[in-house]
């Protein structure tokens, strides 16, 4: 593979020179993080447009070479495509450099992408030089290996570039959870603070593609709490305690058409509730650890407790059907699918339905997923029966005589997600044990000593207690 004649020597020499020039470019013209001439940015913004042509051409080259083993005409075309690709690479590289230099982008991501582009162009150059020999059946593996290197460099560089425009989690954000686990992505345990749970995700999704590890426009990075509070080249963007005086808040609340509006470049504005959360978070001290903010309640998107099949109760069906005919407590199937379980209805016998009657349902205990015991005569003694309803998901005890003394007995119900204790005598102390039930999503304590009824027409809010 050494240069043999005059013309190849010239080609090698020119390529070497060009490669050296490319390699030294980042030192010749330093990316200093400051915006420069407008014409540079104007031209530079054609980079994302121009970059896709050489990508397509470079993917085409190996395909043509492979297909060429059957159709020689295609192999001839491959050489031409390769030359075109080099031209495309050089144009895209120049425009990209203008973009980075002109707009003052100097983050680690930009640097990586730039180096990727330089290396890729040089590999393509070498491919072009190595090709004639390979074509003449000289080195058998060198050229295909170079093509493989070229593809790897291409994918890596393109991924870096994509992360700059769309954010680094663009491809993985909606990946199925199972796949994420396999790839060990996003396995970091989320912190419980308001910042970690609500503010950081907003900034990450909407801001970090320009103000992050990849690019740090205006010297501002928002991908971690410390960097966010540090601010940009013009100083801090957040004034803890005052959203109105915080540049960040000012910029996201400008009219969307305003020159300084953020997110810039036509990216979608933040949602009103997101803005409200940011405002509340800054106003209340912009703390990295505070878990709850006054005046902000966010519906927790806790995963639903999966429905577990209750087992086979077909042997009990005659009894269940007979009960349905009588006027009294009855069991009904949740759905046409027997394994969805049974609901215990007592509305027709509420006034007389007591602990002894409930105890008669013990033989159905594992199959009952919901028990409607509201307004019945059951007492705290009923919990001894109820704790055997191992598949119970919803328990209605509203306006019964229970005091809550037996509530700890429910701890064994690992599927219980709904518990209605409205209008009973339960107290804050007696409901404390409920926090042990991890599956619990909704606890209703309306009109109990634990949560007295509202006296006026204010905005009565039900207490939705999350056990986690």
């Amino acid at each position, binding site marked *: 593979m050494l240069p043999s004649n005059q013309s190849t020597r010239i080609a090698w020499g020119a390529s070497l020179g060009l490669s050296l020039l490319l390699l030294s470019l980042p030192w010749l013209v330093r990316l200093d993080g400051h915006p420069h001439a407008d014409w540079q940015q104007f031209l530079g913004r054609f980079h994302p447009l121009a970059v896709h042509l050489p990508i397509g051409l470079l993917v085409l080259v190996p395909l043509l070479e492979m297909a060429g083993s059957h159709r020689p005409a295609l192999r001839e075309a491959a050489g031409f495509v390769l030359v075109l690709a080099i031209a495309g690479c050089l144009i895209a590289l120049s425009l990209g450099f203008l973009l980075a230099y002109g707009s003052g982008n100097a983050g680690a991501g930009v640097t990586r992408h730039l180096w990727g582009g330089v290396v890729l162009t040089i590999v393509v150059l070498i491919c072009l030089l190595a090709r004639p020999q390979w074509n003449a059946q000289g080195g058998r593996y060198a050229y295909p290996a170079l093509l493989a290197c070229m593809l790897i460099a291409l994918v890596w560089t393109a991924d870096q570039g994509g992360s700059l425009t769309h954010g680094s989690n663009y491809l993985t954000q909606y990946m199925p959870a199972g796949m994420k686990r396999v790839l060990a992505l996003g396995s970091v345990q989320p912190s419980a603070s308001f910042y970690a749970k609500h503010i950081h995700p907003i900034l990450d999704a909407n801001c970090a593609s320009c103000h992050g590890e990849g690019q740090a426009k205006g010297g501002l990075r928002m991908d971690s709490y410390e960097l966010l509070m540090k601010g940009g080249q013009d100083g801090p963007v957040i004034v803890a305690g005052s959203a109105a005086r915080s540049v960040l808040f000012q910029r996201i609340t400008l009219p969307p058409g305003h020159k300084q509006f953020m997110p810039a470049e036509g990216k979608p504005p933040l949602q009103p509730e997101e803005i409200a959360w940011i405002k509340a978070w800054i106003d209340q001290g912009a703390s990295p650890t505070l878990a709850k903010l006054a005046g902000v309640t966010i519906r927790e998107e806790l995963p639903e407790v999966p429905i577990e099949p209750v087992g086979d109760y077909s042997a009990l069906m005659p009894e269940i059907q007979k009960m349905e*005919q009588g006027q009294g407590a009855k069991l009904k199937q*949740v759905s046409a699918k027997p394994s969805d379980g049974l609901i215990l209805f007592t509305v027709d016998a509420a006034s007389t339905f007591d602990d002894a009657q409930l105890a008669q349902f013990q033989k159905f205990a594992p199959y009952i997923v919901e028990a409607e015991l509201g307004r019945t005569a059951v007492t705290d003694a009923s919990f001894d029966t109820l704790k055997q309803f191992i598949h119970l998901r919803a328990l209605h005890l509203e306006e019964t005589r229970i005091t809550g003394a037996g509530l700890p007995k429910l701890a064994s119900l690992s599927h219980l997600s709904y518990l209605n204790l409205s209008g009973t005598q339960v107290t804050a102390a007696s409901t404390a044990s409920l926090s042990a039930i991890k599956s619990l999503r909704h606890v*209703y304590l309306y009109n109990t000593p634990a949560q007295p009824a509202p006296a006026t027409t204010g905005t009565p809010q039900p207490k939705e207690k999350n056990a986690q």
Partner: protein
Amino acid sequence: MKQHPLCTDTEQVTNVLDLAIPARVKQEWAELQTRRHFLGRAGKVLGWAAAASLLGDRSLRGDNYSAAGAQGGESLKFPNFAPKAKRAIYLFMSGGPSQVDLWDYKPNLAAQFDKDMPDSVRGSQQLTGMTTGQARFPVAPSHWAFKRYGQSGTWVSNLLPNTGRMVDDLTIIKSTNTEAINHEPAIMLMNTGNMNAGKPCLGSWLAYGLGSMNDNLPTFMVLQTKLNTAENNQPVSSRLWSSGFLSSEYAGVGLRSAGDPVLYLTDPNGVDREVRRKMLDAVNEINRQTYEELGDPETNSRIAQYEMAYRMQSSVPELADLSKEPQSTWDLYGPDAKEPGTFAYNCLMARRLAERGVRFTQVYKRGWDMHDNVTKILPIICQETDRGCYALITDLKQRGMLDDTLVIWAGEFGRTVYSQGGLTPDNYGRDHHPRCYTTWMAGGGVRPGITYGETDDYSYNVVKDPVTVRDFNATILHCLGIDHNKLAYKFQGLDQKLTGPVPASVVSGLLA
């Protein structure tokens, strides 16, 4: 059994019931024989038909009665899957509430006051006879300001301050659209899935499919709100809660808005409970004999209805007795709720019915049909309904009932952005508008705090995520655990469905 005239075999008379065919087919055949009986044919199969019905029967009560549900034959088909909502409350705003003035905020319209709406917006649409002759269609921006409410930042008109406070609990649909432009077909379409009368309504389909959750009150109840003569009222009729071709047990049972909630429910003087029971037993016996003779399932419906009425003699007075409601109830629903027949009273009653295991309650409020004088009438009707809606949702939520109750607020269509009749800075009218209108749902099965669908700048055409009436109904059924394609009943040779023959789809964007 009489032989077919074309049958040449004089010796052998085949009995259908002896054939090796499924029992279900035999039963269907026997029922058809029942009908033929009325045409003068006697048959020994009738006794069998009666017996078959009785064998598969759970009881002669209102729920899951299998003579009426005989088409299925299986013991339980619905819900098809575990439902999010066990029951539903439908607040029907008859007349067509103005989406332009209440929900569909178009701030840019203010600058368009009295300008002609571009013809391109209306396209080739045929208008009602009330405005089709108008020389021009001047844009009438809403007279009222809008405000953002809740964490969802939803824009709601100042006419609905209480509703605004609960927007985070609502699933607002701005892209509901219908094919009918006049009240009767539109209201039939909304309720029964068909513009022509005679089909079962949503409540009847639910009663038929899901059955009752209690013994002492009907599965499906209807509450009409007292007439307010200051408003422009369109009639609502019992066609809207008819069970159509389903057994009449599944028809909605109305509570009167004044006087006794149900007429003739109290025993006459001198007739005590025991005498009443004896009388009913005797009547039932006679009816049972009639059924055995004729096998008409409607006879059983009659027996079931008598029994239900007997139980309602004690359950309805208890239902209507509001004396045990605490002060907090009146603080929430407002003073109107103490007066029977008001919208607030009906909202409170809907909550009480839900507590007592009623599957489906429909509250009708008339008066939304504002062809003129919008600025005077709309505040009246909003004032009348706003607090009741808020109170109902809030009450259900604080009592833990919103998790398994679906609440629906809808009319039959919306209103035009252009003014019907004269447009002045202070007043305007609005004609019927089927192409877009706003509805909302809340509770079991739907996603709270969202607004679904978008309309154009004139609140005239849907530009994103349209929801047709059949999609709307399919979504309601889905929340209650029903696959709308499976809730079918054979009638007139068709598998009749609430969502009709045109493919409908559950709107997944609305679901929790």
